[in-house]
């Protein structure tokens, strides 16, 4: 097995996912198969090859730091699941 159930659980936790218990075995198997396939990359000689993260020749895009129109506050909050006085509401972070 290329990836164990425990590793899937660990990575799922890093990604803030609470994977359904019935799915864990299936995921471990499927992701394992994909990772085994991906191993063909190991056969490619890449010593000294510069990695690419962006396929078009373009360096940083700068512009003048001008004031521009942006979304109105109410509109920006219009899809918030919970809001109050122009703020997003989230469950308690620190337990008292």
């Amino acid at each position, binding site marked *: 097995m290329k990836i164990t159930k425990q590793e899937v659980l660990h990575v799922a936790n890093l*990604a803030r996912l609470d994977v359904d218990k019935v799915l864990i075995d299936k995921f471990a198997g499927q992701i394992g198969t994909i990772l085994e396939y991906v191993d063909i990359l190991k056969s490619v000689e*890449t010593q000294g090859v510069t990695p690419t993260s962006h396929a078009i020749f373009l360096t940083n895009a700068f512009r003048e730091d001008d004031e521009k129109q942006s979304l109105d506050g109410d509109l920006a909050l219009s899809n918030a699941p919970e809001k109050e006085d122009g703020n997003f509401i989230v469950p308690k972070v620190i337990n008292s």
Partner: protein
Amino acid sequence: MKLYELTIKKAHMLLKKKEISSRELTRAVLDRIDAVEKHVGAYITLDSEMALAQAKIADKEISQGNILPLTGIPMAIKDLMCTKGLRTTCASRILENFVPPYDATVVKKLKTQGAVIVGKSNMDEFAMGSSNEHSALKLTRNPWDLTRIPGGSSGGSAAAVAADMCIGSLGSDTGGSIRQPASHCGVVGMKPTYGRVSRFGLVAFASSLDQIGPLTKDVTDCAMVMNVISGYDSADSTSVPEDVPDYTSFLENDLKGMVVGIPKEYSAGKGLDPDVSDAVKNAVEKIQGMGAGCVEISLPHTEHAVAAYYVIAPSEASSNLARYDGVKYGYRDKTKENLMEMYKSTRSRGFGPEVQRRIILGTYSLSAGYYDAYYGKASQVRTLIIEDFKKAFEICDVILSPVAPTPAFKIGEMVDDPLTMYLSDIFTLSANLAGIPGISVPCGFSSKGLPIGLQIMAKHFDEGKLIKIAYNFEQATNFHKKKPNL
């Protein structure tokens, strides 16, 4: 001819001559949707009232002599481009009720033209898939055979064009998501050069690979839509400040001096269906017969491209999709009282299995101890794939290949076998890794009557050559004129 069967070009001519109104055209398309949507299932959201209101405005403009190429033309938009005030779901539970407060740049451009937005078309959830089966909200069927998939992820956009449920549409392509459904549905689909079309307001899947493009009934329409959506946008820092030619100027009958390249690795591809192989071979001969030269080329890292892609795309996705946390917009599990539990429950209930699978795969590839072996290695192989194309384009203008190894497969056939589904992207995803443009144009039918597409790829910003070759091929064939029986 029924009004809904019109191409953009023909509809534009009739609108201009005032032989039809946009309201008549839009009504005809809406009636067509009423008649066939129950079979095809192309749309997630329809807004006929809004469409007719837009058509009325278009008619007023036209009556005053103000007509642009897309004025009054009913269009479908893949449901991952933000439409102000119109629900944009990404075919996901997590965005099921999301109503964007702004328009994507491409949507703004269509609206500025006076185009009519009929609705939002179905897709694989967050554009992750090649069949539309990963949509959490809807099942789309192939108009040519309702037991088969329309392709994906822009399956709804392709099916809507093929079934005349819109006059043209927009899709997005991260690994073949415009070209493959175009091929499976018998329509024209173009993925432009990375940076050619603004991604502002496009919900991100893999930011270094995503690109918006048109799905249309023919190559002329493709050029017309490209003229509208292309160009630099200061709101997208990866859009390229490069002049946009008039793409309709490439619609001319002359292939002399053009050289087409045939990758030897592609013809030897495992699992290539004989009908697809024959159709593509015939297309290459036809294009040669029209005066183009032909050379064999080599893309030695073709097989590694699939592996590199399925590391890079999920890695970028895992990072992009971190924003869905139930705080700012989208679904939230309101039963959880602690923040961490809320995040996890929201995301697990909001994302479907394929999205969760890719987030886990991507997070794993980027995590400490595995980064070098997976993401780092794949990014180096990406460089080698780009080098392969550079070398190939030293001796040819465009590359010809199949779009997909088989015609559209049956619904349910591959849904539990992600790797096999991923491998079916072998001919298309290299273009995304290299950022080059590609087009799918109808080039035949299988023995079962399913459409087959020819892929043409070119250098960065050489969309004109794609349009030229595709147009010449289209003029010499009738595949694009055949319609599915619905």
